[in-house]
């Protein structure tokens, strides 16, 4: 305590001692404008913050740190004829603190940034696993033994509704913890302006992520687990660039290097339903593992999975621009990207029952890895050329060509045999496959300013994408666009646009689908043939200089089609409307309100079936559909009263956003399920409830300028979230997380409501 007091005292003395000379020097700078152009401004803001939350406090904070305590912010700018210096500090000492500085002069520009961004998943999460080392999670030995031995009255993971009525042994063992992570970024960049035309820039950015995030780590279909994945990784980015520019053109060459390093490259965790690796003493293929272990939980005692591998990326790029006559500009860019990853591979499995000669005799590829490291590599070559010209005031022309190559030159990895869930060795008959993507895009448009203040533009685009390892080898989009923009009119802004996009597929391979066990009528929507239509209209009316009224509407429809398409995403539609008003009757009063409404809908189709040769696979009576329909409303309102009351600024703001998301299953198979009753008399298909949420935030701020140097402020923020999500599982009758629901042991992370208030009281010092 005494040391803290000394530190604070020293800091305050330093600050007060140096403020006096600044004030003195500021006074000495009050000279006629012609001889001294120095400008010094800043705000030092210190106060207290108090927060109160009921419900999901982590969701209330989410990306911020609003705990009770002092709140300090600082902003400083000094500009003279020779330099500019600025510094900012926000939320000093908290998990979301940020510090920045910049210095600019004729020769050198420098900037610095340190920024922390928390991501708070849950403060009411818990886990029975104990972190015993980096990336290692262990469970209570006695509990695992009891579960494996099926001790009477002991439940590990519920697999039936009846079992779910009782608590798992792991519920009582779970310890609460805060499931949060934080991203810390530290960066510098320096630009040296060698001449007025030549600048050289160097930048460094180091970003670290620490904490935990929810992570799946399962052993079988019926026995899923969710753990906190520990995070400890860093990305270091360095860039160097030289840029030369004059009135005729510019040229830039740059190199960027990025190194991602993960300190936790694998995750090991105990199996909650096994303490020993299952063994039935039989020989392959009937043992010694359980051939159904990936489903019934007779698998390993612990599991191991890879996490994020270290990787490097190097990019060399060139950018050039030349200005020609008739307001013509040609610019272009070219880059080569080299991306490598060569981490040590984890073994095939942690399961000792599988790691033995009798199994290797049946699965020889599992005796050892084909190679020790990943040898993964991707090379990208990218280029674009843009041409833009306005030969007359009435006509404009633009054209663009872009090329992207993503070449995966990783050495394929032989995985004709593998181990599923660390439980069961299997033949897969395949090796790893990297996906190459080559994209060529051409775009051209012509604009006509035939009417005063209005420009009509028509354009055409052609996009050709070649991919390996997909169902289509080649997709081609033909895109037609027309827009009308009315600008420069003091009373009206009108923007209208329409785009039609027809996508066709070539080189379709049914074998590619069959290899993945997919229905031959499936089309992957990111590469399926599609008709896309999009239209939008934006209208802003400004009857006077103090009022603007805006209305906008947008419509989009994607219809997936093409020969043989039967399954997958069939269509997706969006519609949005917004209407708003801004009213600024005086410099002291500003008011605005906006209402928006959006609809999203999609239809997808599937077939529930066993694989061939089962007749189910081609039985249309087993088809089903999902109709997803979401409605969203947005409202935002603000009122600013700036010095309407002498020396007083008052601000109010209100934001509302809600969503009603419906998931409706249909089709012959669903009808069959709904007509089929289980042993308890329930239909074997029941509709899902809608997922809804409603978020609103109210802000009020009062600032009183007691003098030119000192002010006082009060700020209040209230937020309320209501949410209903069937996927979030709570203990019956409560808002508290349940970690031991059907088929899984989880952390309890989910979407839950809250009400929160945060108040600030602060003092400002202006200088």
């Amino acid at each position: 305590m005494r040391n803290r007091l000394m530190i604070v005292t020293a800091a305050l003395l330093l600050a007060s001692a140096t403020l006096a000379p600044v004030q003195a020097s500021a006074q000495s700078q009050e000279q006629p404008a012609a001889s001294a152009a120095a400008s010094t401004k800043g705000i030092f803001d210190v106060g207290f913050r108090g927060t109160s939350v009921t419900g999901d406090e982590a969701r209330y904070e989410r990306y911020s740190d609003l705990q009770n305590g002092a709140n300090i912010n600082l902003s400083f700018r000094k500009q003279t004829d020779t330099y500019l210096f600025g510094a900012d500090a926000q939320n000093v000492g908290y998990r979301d603190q940020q510090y920045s500085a910049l210095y600019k002069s004729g020769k050198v520009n420098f900037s610095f940034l340190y920024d922390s961004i928390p991501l708070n998943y849950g403060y009411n999460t818990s886990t029975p696993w104990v972190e015993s080392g980096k990336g290692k999670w262990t469970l209570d030995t006695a509990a695992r033994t009891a579960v494996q031995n099926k001790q009477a009255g002991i439940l590990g993971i519920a697999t039936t509704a009846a079992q779910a009525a009782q608590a798992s042994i792991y519920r009582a063992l779970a310890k609460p913890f805060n499931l949060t992570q934080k991203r810390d970024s530290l960066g510098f960049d320096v630009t040296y302006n060698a001449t007025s035309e030549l600048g050289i820039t160097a930048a460094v950015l180091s970003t670290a992520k620490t904490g935990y995030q929810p992570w799946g780590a399962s052993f079988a279909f019926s026995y899923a687990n969710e753990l906190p994945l520990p995070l400890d990784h860093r990305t270091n980015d360095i860039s160097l660039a030289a840029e030369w520019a004059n009135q005729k053109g510019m040229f830039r060459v740059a190199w960027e290097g990025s190194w991602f390093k993960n300190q936790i490259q694998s995750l090991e965790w105990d199996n909650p339903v096994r303490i020993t690796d299952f063994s039935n003493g039989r020989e392959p293929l009937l043992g010694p593992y359980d051939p159904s272990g990936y489903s019934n939980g007779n698998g390993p005692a612990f599991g191991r999975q890879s996490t994020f591998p270290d990787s490097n990326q190097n990019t060399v790029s060139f950018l050039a621009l030349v200005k020609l006559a008739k307001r013509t500009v040609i610019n272009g860019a070219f880059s080569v990207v080299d991306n490598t990853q060569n981490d040590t591979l984890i073994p095939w499995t942690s399961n000792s029952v599988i790691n033995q000669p009798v199994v290797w005799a049946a699965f020889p590829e599992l005796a050892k890895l084909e190679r020790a490291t990943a040898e993964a590599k991707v090379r990208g070559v990218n280029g674009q050329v843009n041409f833009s010209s306005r030969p007359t005031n009435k006509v404009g022309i633009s054209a663009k060509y872009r090329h992207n190559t993503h070449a995966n030159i990783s050495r394929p990895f032989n995985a004709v045999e593998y181990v599923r869930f660390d439980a069961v060795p299997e033949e897969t008959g395949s090796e790893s496959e990297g996906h190459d993507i080559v994209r060529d895009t051409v775009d051209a448009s012509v604009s006509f300013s035939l009417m005063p203040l209005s420009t009509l533009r028509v354009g055409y685009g052609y996009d050709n994408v070649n991919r390996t390892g997909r169902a289509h080898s080649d997709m081609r989009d033909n895109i037609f666009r027309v827009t009308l923009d009315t600008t420069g009119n003091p009373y009206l802004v009108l923007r209208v646009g329409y785009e039609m996009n027809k996508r066709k597929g070539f080189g379709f391979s049914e074998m590619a689908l069959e290899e993945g066990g997919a229905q031959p009528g499936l089309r992957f929507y990111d590469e399926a043939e599609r008709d896309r239509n999009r239209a939008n209209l934006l209208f802003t009316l400004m009857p006077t200089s103090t009022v603007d009224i805006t209305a906008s509407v947008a419509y989009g429809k994607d219809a997936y089609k093409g020969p043989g398409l039967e399954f997958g995403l069939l269509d997706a539609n969006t519609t949005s409307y917004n209407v708003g008003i801004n009213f600024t009757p005086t410099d002291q009063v500003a008011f605005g309100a906006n209402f928006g409404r959006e609809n999203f809908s999609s239809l997808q189709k599937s077939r529930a079936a066993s694989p061939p040769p089962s007749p189910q696979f081609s039985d249309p009576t087993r088809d089903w559909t999902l109709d997803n329909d979401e409605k969203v409303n947005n409202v935002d309102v603000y009122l600013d009263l700036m010095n309407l009351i002498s020396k007083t600024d008052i601000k109010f703001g209100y934001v509302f956003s809600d969503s009603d998301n419906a998931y409706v299953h249909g089709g012959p198979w669903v009808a069959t399920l709904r007509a089929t009753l289980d042993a308890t008399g329930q239909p074997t298909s029941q509709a899902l409830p809608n997922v809804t949420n409603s978020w609103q935030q109210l802000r009020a701020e009062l600032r009183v300028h007691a003098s030119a140097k000192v002010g006082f402020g009060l700020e209040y923020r209230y937020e309320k979230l209501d949410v209903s999500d069937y996927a979030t599982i709570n203990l019956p009758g409560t808002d508290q997380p349940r970690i031991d629901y059907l088929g899984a042991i989880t952390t309890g992370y989910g979407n839950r409501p809250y009400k929160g208030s945060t108040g600030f009281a602060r003092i400002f010092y202006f200088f």
Partner: protein
Amino acid sequence: MHSFCKTFFRGAALAGLVAGLLASAGTASAATSGKATVQQAPAAKAQGEYAGQDTCLGCHEDKAAAVKDGPHARAFNPNSPAATAGCESCHGAGKAHAEAGGDKSLIKGISKLPVNQSSELCTSCHDRKKHALWAGSQHDQRNVGCTSCHSVHAAKGAPQLKAKSEPELCASCHKAIVNKQSRFNHMPVRESKLGCSSCHNVHGSTNMKLLKAGTTVDESCTSCHSEKRGPYLWEHAPVADACVTCHDPHGSNNDRMLVAKAPFLCQRCHVTARHPPTVYDSYALKNSSAANRISGRSCLVCHQLIHGSNSPNGKAFLR
């Protein structure tokens, strides 16, 4: 109380040191500003058709007040108006305008110019770094010019924006996109940790959708989310193509900013046999272990390595 003390002392100490640092900088600059006064670049003078800045300020003093703290007034930058012809760097030679008593037809009123002409004026200087690819870019083609978003004399927010913040400005046209920051799952834009320009270069870029990093959607996203960059031993095909196949980067009411809720998003592509195309609804949620495929992390409780796996067993992204 303990955490309050810790935070308060930490913050006060840090703020005091920062204030001390800044004050020292101020003192140093005060010491050097005398030299700066001597070496100050002379204000743009009357010469030829140019009236000189003093003449302009004789009538338009309010305009100077708004500019003086901005980048156009930085005389140390040899390319800035303050180091060249002052007001007339942008508005053109003004001697005739001044001698005619302020005839507006004899001077360039930037806000009165057609959008593309005012943009050509601005880009006569702002033609490098992030402005290099302006000509022919999406905004340029739609007659959204420099003065549509920026104001030199009446800026409300940095940098020289006509609104207090980027989202507020961008919302004037892209309201539906900006509304997504209020969605249940969103990037930290409304928390002021990110802005539109964190991902986009609205002045033109080498990437699609005016993304400023890289040349593909994936390169842009993985410039921050580098743990997803790979390349992995086992790739998930749509991941290698574009993150936006599955995610809505502006905000979503689905977990992890997905464009649709799992398992339904996954079931758009995984129409095979056995469990992927199973109907997961309230019956599954309440009656069997299949609930683990529709509650919580859904498919990702098993297929966690969905962005790619580096495990030899990573074929199905289980390990």
